[in-house]
């Protein structure tokens, strides 16, 4: 569904993303992991149209996204959430979600009903008429998800929706994300919480220093020595292996 082909981006002399190619097949949950500063968010920003790649192609269902503004990309059925939540602080929770819902209707009544349904779906149980400013971190993450979902995307880009949540909150949001996938929305996510990545994704790409260093199903990737080294430092894989009793 989504194809990224040999995309690169540098800021000044710094290569943030170099020559990355990946693919997100329809109906799957695909994750992008990597240590801090690996270029994950930069890659996301390019896919969503917030940054323009220096080179490479980005295709959504065969249509090129390079050079399109984010709102155009949203119209094509792909929407992102932000790692640092960006609520419309002074608007109510309902009004926040309605902005997404207005993507499909210009009727405020319908948008409001849709917003309520979406809020239920992502498990927001608080009063929707409270200002978004009052939400907790977990609530804001859910709101990001709800607003994005309200645009009825085909492909959802989630940028660390679990960062800063406690284990039970992570568990809840995992359930939510699975149910979104089961409803037919393809999901591409950046995540730091490994437990989440392992149990959630069908396929994983690992980015380090702007380059893809591994790809595969989560189990495979986690035992890949390159990945272990990227996370734990040079030589870590060897030391780990050495410590294991020889069979």
């Amino acid at each position, binding site marked *: 569904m989504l194809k990224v082909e040999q995309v690169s981006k540098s800021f000044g002399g710094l290569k943030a993303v170099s020559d990355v190619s990946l693919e997100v097949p329809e109906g799957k949950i695909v994750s992008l992991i990597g240590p801090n500063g690996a270029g994950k968010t930069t890659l996301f920003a390019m896919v969503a149209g917030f940054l323009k790649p220096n080179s490479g192609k980005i295709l959504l269902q065969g249509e090129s996204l390079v050079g399109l*503004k*984010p709102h155009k990309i949203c119209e094509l059925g792909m929407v992102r959430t932000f790692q640092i939540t960006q609520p419309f602080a002074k608007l109510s929770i309902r009004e926040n979600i309605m902005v997404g819902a207005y*993507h499909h209707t*210009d*009727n*405020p009544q319908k948008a409001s009903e849709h917003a309520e349904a979406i809020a239920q779906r992502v498990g927001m149980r608080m009063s929707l008429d*409270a200002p978004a400013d009052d939400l907790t971190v977990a609530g804001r993450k859910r709101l990001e998800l709800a607003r994005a979902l309200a*645009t009825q995307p085909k492909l959802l880009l989630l940028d660390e929706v679990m960062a800063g949540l406690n284990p039970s909150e992570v568990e809840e949001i995992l359930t939510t994300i699975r149910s979104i996938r089961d409803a037919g929305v393809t999901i591409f996510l950046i995540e730091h919480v490994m437990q989440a990545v392992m149990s959630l994704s069908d396929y994983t790409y690992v980015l380090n220093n702007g380059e893809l260093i591994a790809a595969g199903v989560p189990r495979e990737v986690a035992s890949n020595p390159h990945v272990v080294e990227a996370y734990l430092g040079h030589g870590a894989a060897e030391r780990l292996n050495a410590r294991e009793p020889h069979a």
Partner: protein
Amino acid sequence: MTAHHPRLLLAGVLILVLLPWVVGSEFLISFAIIVLYSATLGQSWNILGGYAGQFSFGSVLFFGTGAYTSSILHVTYGINPWIGLVAGILMGMLVGAFVGFLSFRFGLRGSYFALITLAFAEAFRIISNSVEFTQAGMGIYIPLDQHPLNFQFEGRTGFYYVILVFFVISVAIALRLERTRFGSRLMAVRENEDAAEALGVDTFGHKMKAIMISGGIGAAGGTFYAQYYLYIDPYIAYGVDKSVEMLLVSIIGGMGTVLGPFIGSLVLHTINEISRHYIDTPGLSLIVYGVILVLIIGFLPDGLIGLFKRKPKGDDAQG
């Protein structure tokens, strides 16, 4: 959110319609004219600044453009001022589109946008002060010819009803913003442009529409001014005072609310009249404005209208 009571609003409009019959005093009618006129200009600023979040420091651009358009068409080309009014509104929208395109295209936000609008207003003032077209610093006198078809009235009442119509239209536009998709999206742009863009809002297009609506309303106010006072010069048309008044009434009354500009205008002009009546020092009203602005921003960031809003119940809100 405000103005959820259409009946209350309707009653308010009815009172304003009947006002000239109830109040006989010329003084009070001209006071009401000033309040409504200033509220209309404030609404022009409010739609761009309060709803779309683009703080303009040069909204007088629209006012002056409307005033000059109708006056030049009338005096130089002999075109009826009512047609001039329409032409002025179109020109106001055009100037809005011009300034908006240049600023929004290049992503100017916040104080940069404020400064560029101020710079444009000053540029327009200097240009209109030096070209023949606007009769330069001499200003334009509009010949007295009192006839409703000529956008001039014998008493104040005629002017009162004209500005009342302008005012009601400007309020109706703000009210629409509170209830439509366009308005919701505009407020989303105000709150967080990136998030709005990500959710499929054409932020550039929405800001352009907002500045054009603002331009149209401001220009209507400008034509009204020219016809009411029958004189316009570069300082009146493009001076910074009016820009400040436009944003002041909105901020004092309550930005991003339907009735904020009206409440701000009412309070500001009441204080102005009182201070002019009792104290004979010129310029004092400016000091009073400044003090009020500081007090409002310090204690009532939502403006005076914040006083009327129901406060959310602190303890009950948490489930």
